[in-house]
């Protein structure tokens, strides 16, 4: 009984390959059922996102292997193996478990700490459950992976702090203002970045926007999109006192907002704070403005620094995430091996009893005429002896399995008594 994962991701394969291997949401159930038709006893989950395509599968009869899974991809997509096999990775057993836990916790994502992958893993699992291709092992594995991901996110700072400039700007805004519903956002220069910040602020409840742009039409179209008001660029100063948050990114080579503008705006605002975000290069807002009381000015470098620091903080915590994950991998493997040890012990028992029976068959003719009762005694005594011999190894095996060393132990025992496994003979 082995656990395999075969797949590719943004690191291992370019998008041209990924898009060929990817499964659409509607094709996943079809793929799953065709997989379980080829491998009737197996369990399977397919995770297909824009960044990765992976299949997780396990089967009690050891029919699965990297090649078998690659063949499945090849057959399903009608693509020769050589075209993609080099980009595919394969993990087995503990490594497969660890891989899934890494993926779910977003340690394997392009953007470290992103949370979308958790819902993608969940959805992949739900789809497989609906297609009835999961069983006790993958149920356990995927449920645990979701818990691990949650744990990693709550106990470490892997997902903390925004790492894009536009969201960092919003982070600063929420440290100045309680809520945005009664605030006026003043956009100067209708660039893409300004729009992005405005979009985030609107998502957070902002309702009033004023847009000024050298090209009035552009201002108007942005303003309309957000129920705002476009104004003439020349009247910019008149509107400053209304602005709680100013986001500026014009193409002007010289500052467009000067100290006097803000000084008089603050005075008109009776000291109500203003947050000025200058994402233009060269800068739009005179840096001296920062010295005015109740005015908070940040330029693109300030935002970038915060974003970079947050990204660094996330990276710093990878170690802690790995500790949590490894701990959970160990727990899962202990459970998994306990599951495996039962059949292994049965195999060991059969092996010994087979030997016993063979010996009894050899013995029977040599004894000549003996009473049925006496023969029963001999048989019974043989079985008792074998059971007594097997008692201890079986007990220790179960204990070992609980502590995570079961697999190795069983292998050693098999090796010791020359018991061969189907998959071992294959190797």
């Amino acid at each position, binding site marked *: 009984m082995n656990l395999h994962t075969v797949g590719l991701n943004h690191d291992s394969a370019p998008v041209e390959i990924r898009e060929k291997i990817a499964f659409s949401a509607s094709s996943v159930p079809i793929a799953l059922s065709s997989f379980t038709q080829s491998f009737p006893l197996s369990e399977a989950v397919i995770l297909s996102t824009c960044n990765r395509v992976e299949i997780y599968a396990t089967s009690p009869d050891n029919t699965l292997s990297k090649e078998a899974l690659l063949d499945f991809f090849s057959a399903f997509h009608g693509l020769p193996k050589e075209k993609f096999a080099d980009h595919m990775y394969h993990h087995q057993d503990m490594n497969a478990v660890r891989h899934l836990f890494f993926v779910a916790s977003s340690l394997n994502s392009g953007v470290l700490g992103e949370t979308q992958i958790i819902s993608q893993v969940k959805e992949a699992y739900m789809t497989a459950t609906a297609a009835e291709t999961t069983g006790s092992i993958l149920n356990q594995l995927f449920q645990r992976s979701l818990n691990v991901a949650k744990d990693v996110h709550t106990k470490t700072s892997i997902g903390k702090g925004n790492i894009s400039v536009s969201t960092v700007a919003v982070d600063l805004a929420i*440290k100045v203002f309680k809520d945005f519903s009664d605030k006026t956002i003043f956009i100067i220069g209708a660039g893409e970045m300004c729009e992005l910040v405005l979009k985030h602020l609107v998502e957070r409840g902002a309702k009033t926007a004023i847009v000024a742009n050298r090209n009035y039409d552009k201002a108007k179209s942005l303003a309309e999109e957000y129920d705002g008001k476009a104004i003439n660029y020349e009247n910019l100063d008149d509107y400053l006192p209304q602005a709680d948050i100013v986001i500026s990114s014009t193409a002007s080579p010289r500052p467009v907002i000067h100290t006097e503008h803000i000084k008089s705006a603050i005075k008109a605002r009776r000291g109500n*704070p203003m947050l000025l975000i200058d994402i233009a290069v060269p800068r739009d807002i005179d840096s001296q403005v920062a010295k005015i009381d109740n005015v908070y000015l940040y330029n693109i470098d300030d935002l970038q620094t915060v974003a970079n620091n947050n990204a660094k903080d996330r990276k710093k915590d990878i170690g802690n995430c790995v500790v949590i994950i490894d701990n959970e991998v160990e727990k899962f493997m202990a459970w998994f091996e306990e599951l495996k040890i039962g059949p292994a012990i049965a195999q060991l028992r059969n092996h010994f009893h087979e030997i016993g029976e063979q010996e009894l068959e050899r013995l029977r003719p040599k004894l000549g005429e003996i009473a049925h009762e006496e023969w029963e005694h001999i048989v019974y005594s043989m079985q008792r002896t074998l059971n007594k011999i097997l008692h201890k190894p079986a007990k220790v095996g179960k204990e070992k399995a609980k502590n995570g060393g079961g697999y190795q132990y069983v292998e050693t025992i098999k090796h010791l008594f020359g018991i061969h496994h189907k998959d071992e003979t294959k190797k």
Partner: protein
Amino acid sequence: MINLLSPIQYIFIAAIVLYILDSVWEVGSLFRPGTFSKRLSNYFILTGLSFHCAFLIVVSIRSGTLPITTLFESSTFYLSLIVLLSVILKFLYRLQALTPFVMPIVTGFSIASIALIRNDLALTYNLKTFWLFAHIIPLFLGYASFTVSFIFSIMYLTQERQLKKKSFGPLFESLPSLETLDALMWKTITLGFPLLTIGLVSGTVWAKTSNILGLLWYLDPKVTLGALTWLIYAAILHLRLGASFHGTRVAIVTIAGFVIVILTFIGPFLMGHKHGYDKGSVKLEQEIEPEPPGIEKVKS
């Protein structure tokens, strides 16, 4: 000195121990939320406050009046109201960052108040009159409210400084927005001010009718400082409502107001003046503080 404590006072010591633990946990949870759990700090503060209140209740039952008969009692009474108000605000507004600022200060004052346990200055006059309650309860609640507004102004200035300096550490993360802090500062001042006014008016009436502070009661330092406190907070209200006076400047004046509150509370005692509190052995014809005549005029 500790071994001279009465069993009741040990209840207060237990509260202090819990406050110390809480302070460590509150501050710790700002910087290392993983190590110092918020749940445990909630447990510390609530148990600490329960002990604290239990102590004050026992003291009140024994003396038959408010726990203000000695300077030690009134200090602990005042501190308990601060903790109570902070806990209410913390849960009401989900303000995780308030208690990390309040508790180290309260704990410090609580420890300092132990030094007053053996101080035998005590109120010696009739402490069971209606006027005592009408005077003390609003005043103490008002003072607690001003103290919390002082804490909010410290938090405001801390956050404002971090925003200006662009230092965005764990403290920056924990503190709420300037607007929130400004609103809370304002709320606690507007809560404290009417209470202060009621306390001062009832004190004035009491002083005039009972003559417990003598004929020149309005020259009493506590009376004078009380009047000053009232004037300062009245000025804050006036400025914020009327003039261009927001944010940082309100925070600074609030801190100034609090300094006067503290002066009113312990100043006269430190200066050796008895106002209200006196050697228990020496029966003087005075107690309790009332307030200033000037006040009513200002109000109108």
